[in-house]
């Protein structure tokens, strides 16, 4: 079992967990007001997008 495979596996699991939690948090905070919360929501969204990128990378859709 090669290092690359382990890395991919961990990345896959991690991305799933982080992505889901981030999305859930985003949903919970959705109605919060205030400029700081607005920015936080934006950043959380982009982080979720980052997790999607990781998944795409894991399945070799992007990169490689």
């Amino acid at each position: 079992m090669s290092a690359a495979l382990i890395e991919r596996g961990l990345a896959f699991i991690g991305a799933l967990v982080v992505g889901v939690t981030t999305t859930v948090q985003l949903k919970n905070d959705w109605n919060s007001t205030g400029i700081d919360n607005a920015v936080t929501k934006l950043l959380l969204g982009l982080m979720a997008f980052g997790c999607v990128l990781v998944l795409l990378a894991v399945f070799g859709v992007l990169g490689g």
Partner: protein
Amino acid sequence: MAATTVAQPGHDSADDVRARYENVDHAYHEQRENRLLGFLLFLVSDVILFSMFIFAYCYLRNSVPNWPPIVEGGRQLPRFDVNFAAFNSVVLFGSGATMHFAMESWKHQNRQGFFRWLIATIVLGIGFLGGQAYEYGSLAISWAGSTMGATFFTLTGMHGFHVFIGVIFLCVLGLQARSGVYTESKYFGLTAGTLYWHFVDVIWVALFFLFYLW
């Protein structure tokens, strides 16, 4: 207006003034508004700093016929290893999530949870830095060797530096929180720390795509 209630400046001691200042709550909120806007503007300027180098990277990448570039000796440089980077990215994103939980628990007066999540964040942050160090060590390209190395090490180095600062920032915040600097209603420092940490994560999203996936 009740202009008469103003103590004549110069006639009251510094202590009176400071006392009055600290007891007036709207003064704090005013301060918070200013600091928040100031901090967000600081993040904006930081985004611009990164985007200049990202612009440089795209520009240099598109100004040569093939990428990764070919260096003296006709050797074409290898692409970066996606697998490890993907793993390391997840570590960093994870730290973003934990930081968010830390903030949430603080907002819900759950100090214990706050510290637990904060420590988790710091550990993950350090883990990411370790991963970066490992990757730097294992790379075949050098900083000054090619435009690829130049842009990669400069951008990721700048980002790593930001993460490093962030880790210290979070440690300081933790200690302050322990010594009771922040209260349930006044915790701007923590807000700033969280924003900064999320910002660092998001910058990495861009770098991860540009260097490993593009």
